[in-house]
């Protein structure tokens, strides 16, 4: 099965592993991710201003490109996922924005949010199916207690992301079970790591990452997994927690379990 | 001296028994004036008013027809005025489509407490219809030359 794929800036740079393992695993699962040829950076954050048009056009172009290919658009980085889904929602449901954005785009047929954006995890859940994933696993990660870290952007705003219950999610936990490990349930899995504020105010990032790490460690997790390069950065670099649990991309564990990690 | 030639419109007002007819009574109790051109027909509910009645009134020479009922949500029969609302919206739109002056028909929600609103509505409506002059169009619509 073929899907359009939007890697985003970080996956081409500091988070190449996240990308590589995702592609290898997808192939192993019979899914072909076709990277959009002309993707541009989504900007990392969705401009919430209703009158912000230009800053959203890169996303709209990517969505349009996927529409032209007639494919669902797969994202992996939490931030890209958030931006693309929000931009898509605005194109579908905010007529004023949609009209203005389409004026810039000057397409033959206006783009109205037709493309379906799905996160790689949704691909695993809804296209592959966690049951099938379980069957495809060659090296189950038996006995590992893993804490799924959702962070802020993967699930919120729930109304737009439509991925899972934003307060009581299970998609990553089900993923952890599918690769043979044991999920740890913990409260701070959907609290912010400090995000981009780290750039000018490290203190926030330290405080937030520490709270996240502390909570995971306190619940006896042996490792955290995430889909977001910035989360990974903050948790590994800025947590002042006494326990320094390893933080990994979920795709790394996936590749490991499927036996495709080099 | 009243101008004998001054046009006096014929206005038929259908009022539901529970709200608007009572509102009209209240207008009377409070001695609120409105033109004698308005004649009220009492119906149990605004949903009792058949488009046929309205056309019949025009056929027999009425210059304006107004329907008054309970405010949406306050219908004595819970849902009657919701149906009346749809029926009248479509009927009025059709009359407009045929080129009949749309100011000749009207729906107004008047509660039993709104005597003042009833009188004000009738004053406005009569003024609007007087402005239009006698109703000719509905009759002329199918004028055989």
């Amino acid at each position: 099965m073929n899907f359009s794929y939007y890697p985003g800036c970080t996956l081409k740079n500091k988070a190449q592993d996240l990308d590589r393992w995702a592609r290898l695993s997808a192939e192993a699962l019979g899914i072909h991710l076709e990277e959009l040829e002309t993707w541009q950076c989504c900007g990392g954050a969705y401009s919430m201003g209703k009158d912000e048009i230009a800053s959203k056009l890169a996303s709209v172009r990517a969505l349009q490109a996927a529409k032209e290919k007639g494919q669902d658009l797969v994202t992996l980085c939490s931030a890209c996922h958030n931006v693309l889904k929000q931009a898509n929602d605005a194109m579908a449901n905010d007529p004023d924005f949609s009209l203005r954005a389409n004026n810039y785009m000057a397409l033959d047929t206006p783009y109205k949010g037709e493309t379906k954006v799905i996160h790689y995890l949704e691909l695993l859940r809804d296209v592959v199916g966690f049951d099938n994933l379980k069957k495809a696993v060659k090296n189950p990660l038996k006995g590992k207690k893993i804490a799924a870290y959702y962070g802020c952007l993967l699930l919120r705003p729930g109304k737009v992301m439509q991925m899972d219950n934003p307060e009581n999610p299970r998609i990553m936990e089900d993923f952890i079970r599918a690769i043979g490990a044991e999920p740890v349930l913990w409260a701070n899995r959907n609290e912010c790591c400090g995000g981009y504020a780290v750039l000018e105010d490290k203190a926030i990032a330290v405080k937030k990452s520490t709270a996240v790490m502390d909570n995971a460690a306190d619940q006896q997790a042996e490792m955290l997994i995430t889909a977001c390069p910035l989360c990974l950065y903050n948790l590994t670099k800025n947590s002042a927690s006494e326990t320094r649990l390893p933080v990994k991309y979920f795709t790394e564990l996936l590749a490991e379990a499927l036996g495709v990690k080099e | 001296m009243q101008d004998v030639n001054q046009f006096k419109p014929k206005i038929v007002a259908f009022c539901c028994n529970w709200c608007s007819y009572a509102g009209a009574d209240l207008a009377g109790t409070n001695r609120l004036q409105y033109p004698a051109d308005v004649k009220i027909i009492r119906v149990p509910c605004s949903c009792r008013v058949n488009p046929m009645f309205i056309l019949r009134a025009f056929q027999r020479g009425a210059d304006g027809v107004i329907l008054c009922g309970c405010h949406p949500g306050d219908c004595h029969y819970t849902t009657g005025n919701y149906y009346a609302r749809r029926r009248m919206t479509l009927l009025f739109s059709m009359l407009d489509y045929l080129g009949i002056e749309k100011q000749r028909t009207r729906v107004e929600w008047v509660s039993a407490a709104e005597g003042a609103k009833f009188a004000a509505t009738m004053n406005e409506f009569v003024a609007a219809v007087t402005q239009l002059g006698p109703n000719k169009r509905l009759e002329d619509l199918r004028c055989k030359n």
Partner: protein
Amino acid sequence: MQELMLAKAKELLQNGTVNRVLGWQAGEFVYDITPAVFESEQDLDAGFVYNEFCGNNLSKYLIKESRKEGKVLAFLKPCDTYSFNQLIKEHRIIRENVYVIGVPCEGKTDGETLKSKGVKGILGAKSEGDELIIDTLYGEQRLSKRDALTARCLTCKSKKHVVYDELLGEEGEEVPENHRFEEVEKLEAMTPDERFAFWRGELSRCIRCNACRNVCPACSCEKCVFDNPASGISQKAAADSFEENMFHIIRAFHVAGRCTDCGECSRVCPQNIPLHLLNRKFIKDIDAFYGEYQAGEDTESRAPLTNFTYDDVEPSIVYKGGKK
């Protein structure tokens, strides 16, 4: 297609699935089509046709036919199936007594349309792509479909059957861009005076022959209010000029939300009054005010006039030009 239908009809008669067939029959001229019930293979061979002139909507005949003994086979074109469904919804047709075979329709023509394009001595016609090939006494003539089809077929809403027991030929598709409200919009864009002049010109030709009422599948009352002395508005003969206005307005109102826009009313009007423009106005308003609704699309949904929402538009919307 006609051969296919004949074979099917005979087969179903033979194996006892049905005991009669509702279809079309040619009259004196090939374009002179009337609905007919065939009770035997001989009848079928003698009269059954299905050609480019078979525009008649057969659904209404099933009200009576479905109440007779045995089962009737009905051939229905896509637009006929909407009327059929609507009549099922209104409990007028007994579904179990009808075997519906959906037949494809690429739009129909009629004698009048062809004659207006200068075609004479019509012997037959067949559809070929975007053209209609007409066999005449004076040889073969070709007309583009745009010219040859009846007005209502040019704004066809769907070539897909909404109900059938069996389908012959290829199933068509809905036509989302059917432009059927363009004429209504044109009228709406006129001034009230122009509209009035238009309708006066049209309605003044009415001769109250009741053809529209008799053909309309929605006008299937056991007894029409206009025929009922107890209704208070019965009309034996028009007592004054107003009564015909009333007739057409009330008729349109009575079928509002039930009319499937089959266009039979305008087709049969001997005075060529565009009666469908009254019905379409209601359809357009209903779509705009209460959400899109296609009568006959299903057999369960509530018709717009027997339904409401708490926040429906107020009648005063009419003063605002019908804009929400």
